[in-house]
């Protein structure tokens, strides 16, 4: 076998989304929901001033219950901030105007890496390991759990690959505090990595117990119990490292005064 060096395909910012519990919706509604997904994404891009980015996408494919697209890598930071909040708001708006047969909630994965890009609109556009990894991340248990453990008002739960997190968040390009992301172990098929969880509008158990289920780790649960059931204190380390200081977590919100149910008791 002769080996020939070949060119690396261009690096692309990769975004994949998936409708939660698509198979749980009525069969007669599947087509309508499937068709709505690219409309939702386009309007979410528009909503946060990224209409051009949507127009410049290198590829975009429906996956039945979701969608995957590739964009110039320069767009990567914007996919995290402001796009994730805009998607949350767009889904809430759609619910307010009864746009969909059922209120939609989405898992989102964000990654960056080399994928094919012939510019000819081939069915194979966006092929490569990075593409596979984007879909694997979307299937990872920690991001699924985020939607299971949040209230119905949390419409978007995202998982960001370690590479995207390093390149766009730690670098400061996304202008998003690294503490807003919670590292979580990812193991899907051959992919073993750390994913970074981000929820623009957390609710339900995510507010009470943090982004990672404590039940999944008895040691951590014990640890919480010892501290008198006070999760989400700053400086807890990676488990429940999500803290609510600052106003960044609710887009347009006014501060941190609504973050803990205990606060509601006068």
């Amino acid at each position, binding site marked *: 076998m002769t080996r020939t060096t070949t060119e690396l395909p261009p690096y692309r910012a990769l975004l994949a989304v998936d409708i939660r519990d698509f198979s749980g919706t009525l069969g007669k509604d599947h087509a309508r929901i499937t068709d709505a997904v690219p*409309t939702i994404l*386009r*309007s979410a891009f*528009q*909503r*946060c*001033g990224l*209409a051009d980015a949507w127009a410049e996408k290198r590829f975009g494919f429906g996956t039945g219950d979701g969608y995957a697209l590739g964009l110039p890598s320069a767009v990567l930071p914007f996919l995290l901030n402001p796009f994730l*909040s805009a998607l*949350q*708001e767009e889904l*809430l*708006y*759609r619910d*307010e*105007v*009864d*746009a969909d047969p059922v209120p939609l909630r989405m898992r989102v994965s964000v990654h960056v890496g080399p994928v094919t890009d012939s510019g000819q609109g081939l069915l194979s556009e966006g092929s490569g390991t990075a593409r596979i990894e984007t879909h694997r991340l979307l299937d990872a248990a920690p991001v699924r759990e985020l939607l299971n453990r949040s*209230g*119905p*008002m949390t419409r978007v739960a995202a998982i960001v690959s370690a590479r995207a997190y390093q390149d766009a968040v730690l670098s400061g390009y996304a202008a998003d505090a690294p503490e807003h992301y919670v590292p979580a172990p990812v193991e899907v098929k051959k992919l073993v990595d750390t994913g970074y969880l981000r929820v623009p*509008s*957390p*609710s*339900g158990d995510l*507010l*009470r117990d943090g982004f990672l289920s404590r039940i999944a780790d008895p040691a951590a649960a014990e640890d919480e119990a010892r501290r008198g059931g006070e999760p989400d204190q700053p400086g807890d380390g990676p488990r429940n490292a999500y803290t609510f200081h600052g106003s960044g977590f*609710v*887009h*347009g*919100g*006014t501060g941190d*005064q*609504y973050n*803990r*149910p205990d606060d*509601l*008791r*006068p």
Partner: protein
Amino acid sequence: MYPPGSRLLQQGDPGSAVLALVSGRVKVLGTEPDGGQLLITLRGAGDLVGEIAARRLSKRTATVETIDRCTARVLSVDRFNAFLNRYDGHPALTDYLVTKLSQTVPYQVELVHFGPERKIARLLLEVVALADWSSANPDRIPFSQQEVADALGMARSTVALHLHRLREIGALRTGPRLMVSDLEVLKASAGV
């Protein structure tokens, strides 16, 4: 029971009660330093108003005016909290507040990146969707051109131009009043 155009809450007043809207739609308005009023959000049957100030016993953070004839139950903060305690409603209220807090920026800021026609279509669509059983004509949008212009921070002439276009494409009925003719056309124009 409150007639259309009544002021339920006034920004700056002390907040000591929560209103639960039973029927009818309201506008939540923010007063600017220069006295101008900006639409912040719309709320309808099943929504709470006044919950922010009531919870902290602080001043009202916004003005609330009725769009339709509204029915609302007024609850003192103590009764509201007693209700929450009895039904373990605190987590639900937290979730509600998290959502509603994303609606504390003026409506026009929220929509700033959309084109004028899309902004108008989105506002009209939301007003129609908030209509409840008490509404005699749910397709009717009880806003004047000037009110649409104020809500979106647009010139009245711009609003008139785009309403004309929305009538041309069949989203709205022709005639002096704002009335939805084809909801699907209006939705397409709103990008939903």
